[in-house]
């Protein structure tokens, strides 16, 4: 009481209270909490044109009764339209802020009011001027235009089929913006001039104002029959062509949408829409699983196709209308280890959208250094969205004046085409050059005003800063005979795995001085992914430098150990007990069910029949020639392999008295050979290289019973043998067998561990079955990655400019 009665203390207290009262609202902006109102949000489009939402009220997320506003100069709209498949309406959300906010269109009705449309809406597209959007209604087989000034539906238009997809083809020079609708039953593409609505005047209540006032009419439709069932379509950013993929055809159609697109094309097209060509997306004999989704980047350079059945994303060079074979286009080529034509995506990819990122790294003196990354966001069924990169490029550009603004660069195709920066945007044909080009000069493209360094990727991007590596020291298994010899040589009682007297795998180059211990030397060099980059000038220099970045090719690595064994047993033959001497030909030996091509057997290898030729513990007289005088000898029945097919081996006697092997071919005349025999096969004076998970990499495969080189084996690295003193190149590692001072002894081996540190760049979406993925750059307060899910009741939205906030759900 004393404290309060004091005037100074009362004043202080009052000031504190007043200060908190004023400060509290400023610390956090209250967000209106709306009841959930989305029901199976299937599709989303964002109108980024002339129309802007008025301020959304903080209490009930309403926008008042008047018409929407014309955006101010330099501003563009950010109105999201979300199709609710199960409630036959379109929800409106404001994307102009840091976070998306659903808008209640009518506060006089309970719940959150949306725009009513037809039955079972499945798609939406917004015109580039942002005044009209179009919703396709699958059950009604209609199209509902929306007047975005009023957020009201206009009269539904009947469609000649069941609508599947809708898209906008931008107006190219001299053309009008067009509406593209993909129909099913029958499968066809419909094209018509789009609408435009002028800003209405004297709107007292947009809920009752005539919806089509001030709006043009939809044009007459022209239709093109399609060869199969449409799965998805994407329209080039300039509106010239559309790309269509099918659920029952392994090809993609390129459809010309404008007269200009038809001119000069070899296809016999007189009127748009017209199929200009078809691009095969699979091997000729592959099953027709079809494709589920397609996307294109904002510059129209790459088209991305989701092959859900094979868990991959395919890359199509849009300008050349060719599928890029990702396994060949990466450097070094991924063949023969990858059988995919595209980039493998973890889990089941479902939908895709293309993107090109553009970062100005440096500007000065009429030049700029800009980095581009071409790729796509792919949403999978595990609640993740992955980024798959096609290529990245560094461009040194000479230019007068300012570079294009971000908005102009992405949205104004004509301005971009006319700007000097166009020289930076050339996509070369892939693959670029021979795989063994070490200088990377083949990745540098020089133009009149630009120098561009291009790096093919065609794979998910690595999100982890850590690189793959070899882990710890190698272990070794040394036969007693070798240890004894080494002791005689060195005088030491013990022998370490790193002793330089021993032959062993090492990354040490030929000619390099050998340290006293090889234990700390990396056992192998991991495959590197090399990038040619352009670097900003340093200090007072004005020269843009070239550089090469090299780091382990994490994507190619596997978490496994590798074992290198001198004259080791081929793994597939290690426990086999079904080898059979041919009934008719003594020199022929049946493999007993194993594929000898895949087992890595080669002529020159040696086969040993294990055990003694006994029946009931005794050697039959007919088998006397196959028994050694030395009863402890286990390899007496060893033959040289002089020929092979997938099923049998051709054997020859080894005529070396010193080795003392059997001098007769195995024959059924020996009674003990009339049954399955245990055997193994080893190379001669070679080291076998076997991965714990990769296994033994054979050079050949079984084709019609014969061993032929595997496809892609010409690119090297498909081998499993090394020789002492020589280099070895495996699927993702290189090493050399250091000769040492002692000859290697059979079954001596070294093992070392490889650690992979690849984590695909991913974003959380929480959507179990996303029906669309959208990436929007340059919205007023960020870049938004959006995934609606027609099987759920929410849309996943995240502002990548605010990564700390993560994914949020709009309900």
């Amino acid at each position, binding site marked *: 009481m004393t404290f309060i009665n004091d005037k100074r203390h009362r004043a202080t207290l009052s000031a504190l209270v007043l200060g908190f009262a004023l400060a509290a609202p400023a610390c956090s902006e209250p967000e209106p909490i709306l009841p959930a109102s989305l029901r199976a949000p299937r599709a989303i489009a964002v109108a980024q044109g002339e129309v802007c939402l008025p301020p959304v009220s903080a209490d009930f997320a309403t926008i008042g009764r008047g018409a929407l506003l014309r955006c101010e100069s330099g501003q563009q709209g950010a109105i999201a339209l979300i199709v609710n498949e199960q409630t036959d309406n379109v929800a409106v959300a404001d994307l102009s802020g840091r976070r998306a906010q659903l808008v209640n269109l009518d506060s006089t009705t309970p719940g959150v009011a949306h725009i009513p449309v037809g039955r079972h809406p499945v798609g939406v597209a917004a015109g580039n001027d942002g005044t009209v959007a179009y919703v396709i209604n699958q059950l009604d087989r209609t199209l509902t235009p929306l007047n975005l000034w009023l957020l009201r539906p206009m009269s539904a238009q009947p469609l000649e089929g069941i609508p*599947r997809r809708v898209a906008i083809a931008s107006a190219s020079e001299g053309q009008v913006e067009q509406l593209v609708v993909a129909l099913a*039953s029958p499968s066809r593409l419909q094209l018509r001039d789009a609408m435009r609505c002028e800003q209405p005047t004297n709107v007292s209540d947009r809920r009752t104002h005539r919806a089509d006032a001030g709006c043009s009419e939809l044009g007459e439709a022209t239709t093109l029959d399609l060869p199969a069932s449409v799965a998805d379509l994407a329209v080039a950013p300039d509106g010239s062509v559309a790309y269509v993929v099918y659920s029952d055809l392994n090809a993609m159609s390129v459809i010309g949408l404008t007269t200009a697109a038809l001119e000069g094309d070899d296809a016999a097209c007189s009127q748009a829409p017209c199929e200009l060509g078809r691009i095969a997306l699979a091997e000729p004999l592959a099953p027709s*699983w079809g494709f589920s989704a397609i996307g294109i980047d904002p510059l129209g350079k790459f088209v991305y196709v989701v092959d859900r059945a094979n868990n991959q994303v395919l890359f199509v060079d849009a300008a050349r209308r060719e599928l890029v074979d990702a396994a060949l286009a990466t450097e070094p080529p991924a063949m023969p280890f990858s059988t995919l034509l595209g980039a493998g995506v973890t889990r089941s990819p479902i939908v895709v959208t293309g993107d090109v990122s553009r970062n100005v790294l440096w500007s000065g003196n009429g030049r700029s250094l800009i980095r581009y990354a071409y790729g796509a966001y792919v949403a999978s069924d595990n609640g993740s969205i992955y980024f798959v990169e096609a290529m990245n490029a560094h461009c040194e550009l000479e230019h007068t004046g300012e570079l294009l603004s971000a908005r102009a660069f992405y949205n104004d195709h004509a301005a971009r085409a006319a700007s000097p920066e166009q020289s930076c945007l050339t996509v070369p044909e892939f693959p670029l050059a021979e795989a063994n080009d070490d200088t990377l000069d083949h990745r540098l493209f020089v133009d009149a005003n630009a120098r561009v360094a291009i790096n093919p990727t065609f794979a998910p991007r690595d999100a982890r800063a850590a690189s793959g590596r070899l882990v710890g020291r190698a272990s070794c298994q040394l036969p007693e005979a070798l240890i004894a010899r080494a002791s005689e040589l060195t005088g030491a009682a013990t022998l370490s795995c790193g002793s330089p007297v021993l032959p062993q795998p090492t990354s040490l180059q030929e000619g390099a001085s050998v340290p006293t211990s090889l234990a700390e030397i990396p056992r192998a060099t991991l495959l590197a992914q090399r990038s040619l980059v352009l670097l900003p000038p340093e200090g007072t220099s004005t020269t843009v430098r070239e550089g090469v970045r090299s780091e382990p090719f994490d994507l190619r690595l596997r978490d496994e150990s590798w074992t290198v064994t001198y004259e080791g047993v081929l793994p597939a033959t290690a426990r086999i007990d079904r080898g059979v001497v041919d009934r008719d030909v003594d020199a022929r030996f049946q493999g007993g069910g194993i594929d000898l091509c895949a087992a890595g057997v080669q002529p020159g290898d040696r086969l040993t029949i294990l055990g003694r030729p006994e029946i009931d513990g005794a050697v039959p007289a007919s088998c006397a020639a196959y028994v050694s005088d030395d009863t402890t000898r286990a390899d007496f029945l060893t033959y040289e392999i002089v020929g092979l097919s997938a099923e049998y081996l051709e054997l020859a006697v080894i005529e070396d008295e010193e080795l003392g092997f059997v001098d007769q071919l195995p024959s059924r005349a020996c009674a003990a050979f009339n049954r399955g025999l245990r055997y193994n096969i080893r190379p001669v004076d070679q080291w076998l290289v076997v991965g714990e998970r990769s296994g033994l990499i054979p050079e050949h495969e079984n084709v019609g019973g014969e061993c032929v080189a595997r496809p892609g084996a010409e690119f090297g690295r498909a081998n499993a043998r090394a020789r002492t003193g020589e280099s070895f190149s495996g699927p993702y590692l290189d090493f050399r067998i250091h000769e040492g001072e002692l000859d290697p002894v059979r079954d001596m081996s070294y093992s070392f561990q490889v650690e992979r540190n690849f984590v695909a760049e991913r974003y959380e979406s929480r959507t179990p079955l996303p029906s669309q993925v959208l990436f929007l750059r340059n919205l007023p307060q960020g870049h938004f990655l959006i995934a609606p899910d027609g099987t759920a009741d929410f849309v996943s939205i995240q502002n990548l400019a605010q990564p700390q906030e993560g994914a949020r759900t709009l309900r």
Partner: protein
Amino acid sequence: MKSWVTIAVLFGLFSALGCSDQYKGTLPPRDRLNYPIGLALHPDGRFLYVVNSNFDMSHREEVGGTVSVIDTETLQILPAVTPYIPSFGGYIKLNRDATRAYVTTRHANEVIVLDVAGQGQALSCLTPGGVRSSDPDTCRVGRVPDVQGGAVLGSDPFGLEVATITRTEANGDQTLIDLVNVSHLRGSQVTTIAFPNGEIGAASMRSAALVAGGNQIAVRPGSLDFYVAGRSTNQVVYFQPYVNPAGQVEAIVRRGAIALSNGIEAVDARGLAFGQSGRRLYVATRRPNTLHVIAIDPNNARHEIVSTISLGGRPSDVVVHSDANGDELVYVTGYNDGIIEVIDPRAGVLVDTIAVGSSPYQLVIDQSPDRCRYPGDSCRGYVSLFNDTGSAALRCDDVENGCGAVAVIDLDPASPTYHQVIAKIR
């Protein structure tokens, strides 16, 4: 004193007899549907069989259900030939020559084996003495062999699929063996019971733990691969029973599994059905509400999900039907929404919805040879409406003597009532 004791003892004795639980509750009416679930059509389409489950246990538990025999020409239930079955009946399937009907019941975890009359006009339990009875007592299979120590059928048998194979004996005689495959809602078992010539006494049985919460089973056309949808897993598992030359099922061989989701552990898979060629499998799940379209390459047994189509609330059954126009359509019952969604799977679009009534569960479509061939042919589907009362204002508690109905749907594309309910049977 002694007389009082005597009276008390006698009273207690009679009371005990009179209060036996075995005889508690009434018999269910045979002229009425009562929480119908499973349906089957006789091959010639004339008779429809409906499993009534007594789900509210308003009748005697051990014979609280029935299998209604309905004349599809008059749409009338034939009470006299409608047998009783235990409560909580599930699915019903006929064997290849339509001489036997098999029904799963969960009251005592049994399969009921019913005799089908020559033209399908009656169902009955054939007693060992050859007498046809409506009492299922001697037609209940819950233990094989039915002796102490015999293998017991697992808990909650629900899904059902029947295939008939032929075994040729050394003397050239052929035996038809009904392979009755059962899924279990509780646990992870699937069960195969082999009935030589449909005879209970000669049955053999094997079970295997394959899929958690097994729901429906379907056999791939042209094979003996049985596919099971699971409620408590994210997989569809397929298996083959191995039957020895003596006609006994010796093993269940797991052949593979299809992962329906990489992000959800239990997708609550409900209905599944194959396209006519056997190269497409359609599976409806409730978490999320989706139809999964799976392509099958018969050359290498590869199964891949090629598309997913979002559905309305709580799909239950999936039926594939080639209509008179030659188009293969997929019909999915939506338990929550009271509709059937009609999907063109090749185009990936919803082509129609059929409002049928409350809680549609299973759908059967008339596949008899003279139906549904051309536009203008009679073509009908029948769907069980589990708790339909005929009025949105009424609940099952408000209705006496049974709840539920079967809706009759016109599937003739040339008909003005195409994809509409033309009748309801109660």
